[in-house]
């Protein structure tokens, strides 16, 4: 692979809170049927500034856009019928916390800005966004990555089709984490994306459901200007997107070398290979869809007449694309990268001032990062994979509490073989109980099934089965069974297993370790 420079933009949704500028729940309603339809027409306006960025409006929305929603679940603010409420303080604090966890310099007077969005995904035509912090670092073994910017903004509408969007996602708080373009390979990109997610893993309010994290990336190769790839939904697609984009950039360069442009005519200097033919077809589809690409016989000397495609090809080397990534990693042209962001202040809201006491308060409640959590487990002698498993499955808090009174080994065994395996979530009291009673996983399962919400019952039964009177009975039973079996030929292991089972059938909550000991003595 050739030299590449990649910068990541991670978009992380927040949850269990309200939207950023209104009191609606920050949640999608994809399972509900929408009953509200709004049609909006947009106009060529660049915001406050008097200049118009021509490239920005190459995709201006000409036809009305439809918005759908469940009327009861949204308010007038998402619909741009009412000014915003003041910013959701929890989301703001979460964003500040994340800024500090990446060691950013936090902007002390934050102005909420309006960023003009022309694709129709927001009914107001703009997105409210705040620059919170800059100059942070993501520390990795061997190489640090600069976190250039941290933004807090409202999410846009969910695209339903070319002309319509769902409003449920509008206004959900979105954190944007932007790295410097120092990533050099797809593997590195995945690592960095993962590391960023892991750093904020334990921050309360960080959403982890499907679709909660979206990545955009900027990629440039040595001969090609920076292109923007948007809407990457998973790390697998991230790798494919980078690979396909690098491929595309190479193909574009080689294509440009084989064509000659005169006025509106494109002449092929030699016959294109199948990949180049595909590329030409895609280019025509993206830039001059009225032409039927199959009308052209793409051979040496063939000529295509397309002013639109020529206009695009002439800028390819100097100005990159903004492209939408598909599920297979390929991408579709959206528009030219805008050289200037069209932004102006949100005048309905006042400046957000960040005081030192507020920062101190937030700093003292920063949670551990993923790495720090794992390390705190491995420091106690547990293997890395086990530790990682515990953290990933959301069991770290439970681990910390149980390990205060029980050995790490027993706790990890309990958590992974019982809690995670059986997909149960026993209360702290029940967990403590299971560990104190030294039950086997099977016994825990039985006890939980029968008495899950009633620890007292468990204690009762277990005490009965493990009482001294019981032991006397068990010992007698063992002696009886051994006498009976000495008459028949036996395999010691099998016999042990059979005897164990026999006892457990009668006394389900027997202390297994003690029983095994007792058997071993006899055999």
């Amino acid at each position, binding site marked *: 692979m050739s030299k590449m420079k990649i910068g990541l933009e991670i978009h992380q949704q927040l949850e269990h809170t309200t939207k950023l500028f209104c009191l609606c729940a920050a949640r999608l309603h994809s399972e509900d049927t929408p009953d509200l339809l709004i049609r909006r027409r*947009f106009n060529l306006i660049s915001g406050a500034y*008097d200049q118009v960025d021509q490239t920005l409006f190459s995709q201006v929305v000409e036809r009305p856009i439809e918005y759908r929603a469940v009327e009861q679940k949204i308010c007038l603010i998402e619909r741009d019928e*009412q000014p915003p409420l003041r910013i959701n303080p929890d989301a703001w604090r979460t964003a500040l916390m994340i800024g500090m966890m990446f060691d950013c*310099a936090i902007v002390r007077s*934050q102005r909420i800005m309006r960023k003009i969005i022309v694709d129709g995904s927001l009914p107001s035509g703009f997105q409210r966004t705040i620059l919170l912090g800059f100059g942070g670092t993501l520390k990795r073994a061997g190489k640090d990555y600069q976190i250039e910017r941290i933004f807090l903004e409202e999410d846009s509408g969910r695209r339903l089709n070319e002309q319509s969007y769902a409003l449920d996602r509008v206004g959900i708080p979105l954190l944007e984490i932007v790295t410097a373009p120092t990533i050099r390979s797809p593997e590195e990109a995945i690592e960095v994306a993962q590391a960023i997610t892991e750093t904020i893993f334990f921050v309360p309010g960080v959403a982890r459901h499907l679709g909660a994290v979206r990545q955009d990336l900027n990629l440039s190769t040595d001969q090609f200007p920076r292109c923007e790839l948007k809407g990457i939904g998973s790390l697998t697609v991230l790798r494919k997107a980078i690979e396909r984009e690098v491929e595309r950039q190479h193909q574009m360069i080689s294509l440009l070398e084989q064509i000659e442009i005169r006025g509106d005519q494109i002449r092929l200097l030699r016959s294109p290979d199948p990949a180049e033919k595909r590329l030409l077809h895609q280019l025509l589809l993206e830039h001059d869809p009225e032409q039927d690409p199959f009308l052209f016989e793409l051979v040496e000397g063939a000529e295509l007449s397309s002013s639109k495609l020529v206009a695009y090809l002439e800028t390819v080397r100097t100005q990159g694309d903004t492209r939408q990534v598909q599920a297979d990693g390929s991408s579709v042209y959206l528009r030219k990268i805008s050289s200037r*962001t069209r932004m*102006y202040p949100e005048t309905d809201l006042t400046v957000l001032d960040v005081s030192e006491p507020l920062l101190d308060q937030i700093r003292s409640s920063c949670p551990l990062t993923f790495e720090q959590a794992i390390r705190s487990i491995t420091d106690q002698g547990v293997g890395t994979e086990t530790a990682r498993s515990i953290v990933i499955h959301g069991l770290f808090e439970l681990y910390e509490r149980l390990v205060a009174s029980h050995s790490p080994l027993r706790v990890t065994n309990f958590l992974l073989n019982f809690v995670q395996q059986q997909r149960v979530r026993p209360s702290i009291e029940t967990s403590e109980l299971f560990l104190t009673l030294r039950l086997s996983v099977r016994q825990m399962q039985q006890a939980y099934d029968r008495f899950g919400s009633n620890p007292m019952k468990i204690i009762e039964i277990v005490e009965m089965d493990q009482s001294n009177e019981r032991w006397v009975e068990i010992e007698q039973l063992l002696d009886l069974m051994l006498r009976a079996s000495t008459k028949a030929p036996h395999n010691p292991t099998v016999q042990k297993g059979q005897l164990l089972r026999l006892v457990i059938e009668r006394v389900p909550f027997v202390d297994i370790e003690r029983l095994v000991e007792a058997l071993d003595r006899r055999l």
Partner: protein
Amino acid sequence: MNPDPQITFTVEIQIEGKRLRGTVRSIEDKTLWLVDSSGYEVGINLDQIEALNQIDARPIEDHTIEQERFIFPPNIHGTVLIINTGGTISSRISGTSGVSSQSFLARMFQSTETLQVRYHECDPLKFSEDLTFADWNALGNLIRDLIRAYQPDGVVILHGTDTLAIGATFLSFGFEQLPCPVVLTGAQRSSDRPSSDTFENLVGATIFAIESRYAGVFVAMHLNDMDDTIAIHHACRVLKTHASRRSTFRSIGIEPFALIRERSLEPQGTGILLRSEIDPSFAPIEERAGLLLARPTNSTAELELLLNIYQGLVIAGTGFGHVSAAYRNYLQQNLTVPIVLCSQCPEGFANLQVYQSGRELLRQPMICSGTDLLPHVAWIKLCYLLTRFRVEEVLTQFHLPLRQETAHTRWSDL
């Protein structure tokens, strides 16, 4: 550091060991405001700055809006006169100075091949809560003068929405004769956003102003929250009912006079004045009446004060137009000042016949019912009548429907 307003400085600052580059916007209250390369504005405490380096200094570029203009749809034929008084429709923030600037519209309105646009801007532009009788009288004179000068097919007035209904009522009574429609319109959602209702309101107002068969004063605003349809309301039957949404203006007790659906005129009602070649005639209205919102009270102080200041009074009473006992007692003395009792309820009729207390008030010769007039309409109408007629004649005149200000034509019952 006092940055020269004609020069843009690009600086790099360092705080907490981290660097940020941006152009200087301003310094206020110990905060340095920078605009970063993406356009974000950030405020940095001067105390925090560890280092500051100037990177660049260049004169501010002159930004001209070439591409940004308001394009009227191609199928409108005629001449329209657009007069801008101010309001949200005109306000924007200037990118370079950060100050609200209202005159970008002047550059925006361009004539098309078939539509000739004449644009006039009032100076100063005002938010409509600041407008006064003097302003509206000046506006009336201006409209008359410009109609005479340009002979447009119709007139569109850009006006703040807060008092747009009052402005429309004012012009409606002020003009005794109009040759063409005068349509007031405005914006609920500021014009600096792509989704602003400004554009469709303007187009709808213009289409109606040019194509309607009727002359008179009207109000054009969104019918509902969608951008498909603009409602043309009678000037004296319209009310702003919501503080912010696009569909805020509603015709009360009557259907809108017309609709502009998908930019095409659909007349709905009949007017009282047809389009003609008549010379426009406007006479000023003086603020001779007061307006009082009645509510439960034992004190008549407010009432007495207003009766001392004004030559007439509109009281917006509760329900059918009722007022408290204290007021009733006061009003049953000999009054020399005409009093109109309306209802605070936007819909329905003031009706003083239903209850004894109302009937007693009606026995007073200087008291009359406002019927279904909206209180602000009754107020302007009373001012108008007090300016034109002697006090004794005012109430007789008040009963006459003059400008389609009532949804009902049979007055005698009430």
